[in-house]
């Protein structure tokens, strides 16, 4: 698939300031504010968040497009918001 340029994604959520399970809750709330099909970059810490948040987002019916390793202990997960009934 075409490369995704994170700089072109306006929607952002930063979940590096919270811990599980609020990491997922904060990401979920950010996704719900979008229209179906919109992209968002979710900024998260290494460790537990990057191990678990992508899977929870998938289970909510959203589409994960890319996980970007910022090589500073953080990651950006690029997600396309799913349909409401997904």
């Amino acid at each position: 698939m075409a490369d995704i340029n994170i700089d072109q994604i306006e929607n952002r959520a930063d979940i590096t300031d919270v811990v599980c399970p609020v990491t997922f809750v904060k990401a979920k709330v950010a996704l719900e504010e979008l229209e179906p099909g919109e992209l968002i970059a979710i900024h998260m810490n290494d460790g537990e968040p990057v191990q678990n948040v992508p899977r929870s987002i998938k289970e909510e019916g959203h589409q994960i497009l890319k996980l970007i390793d910022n090589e500073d202990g953080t990651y950006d997960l690029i997600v396309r918001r799913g349909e409401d009934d997904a």
Partner: protein
Amino acid sequence: MAVDYAALKAGGFMRQKQKNTFSLRLRCVGGTVTAEQLAVIKQVADQYGHGYIHLTARQGIEIPFIKLEDIDDVKAALAKGGVEPGVCGPRVRTVTACQGGRCCPSGCIDALDIARKLDARYFGRELPCKFKFGVTGCINNCLKMEENDFGVKGAYDVSYDESQCIDCGVCAKVCRENAITFEDGKLIFDADKCSHCGRCVKSCPTGAWEGKSAFRVYIGGTFGNHIISGKELTPLIKDEGTLMRVADATIDYFDTHSNKGERFGKTLERLGTDELQHILEEAVAGAEA
């Protein structure tokens, strides 16, 4: 008339320190009790016990303070609600299980279903010593399989389909064994490192990773005066038929090789595991035979 305490113990009636008083162990499989069963258990605890139950260390229910003279009435009352007494002593005990893939997002197998099948196959079977089965849904191992004589962990036999992969990189990150790496944008899977936890399958956004339910088996574990951790003596078991053959071979070996009152882990310390391992290899190979 002399009281046959051994028969009562075999039938789940645990003698209490109070004279002619028993704590009645119920038959519970995988820690699952229906609302109908709970209703009759409540009634018996109120009428014949002291109005409470005890949850055992292995997911069972006991009703304490049952009087010797009430035992037959208690059995009859419980039977009306589909509740049977459990067992104690040298035989196959309560089979434990987590909720597994029925409810838990991490589950790789239907742990309760496997526990019920093991219970139906072996429950109460007389053996040289107690024998404990447990089933846990995944490698997270909430039910601590290594402390059972025969512990089953749910797993995934994973496969990767490159054509569906979008190179998102999530699987490489969630893999705790470093079995998945990317080199020049291409995914490399080192199957030898795979623990069959299934995290790649569960997190893959496109279904490029697929997982088939499988089992990892741990044998000869015990927790008590002398703690022994169960050993994995078989490779990944890929179907239920093979699992049951391995269980049959294991329990038959225990039955014929253990001394009276000797836990399986002690037997294996005494005899080594080579012979059993050979027998289990044949049981696994039986699938192709």
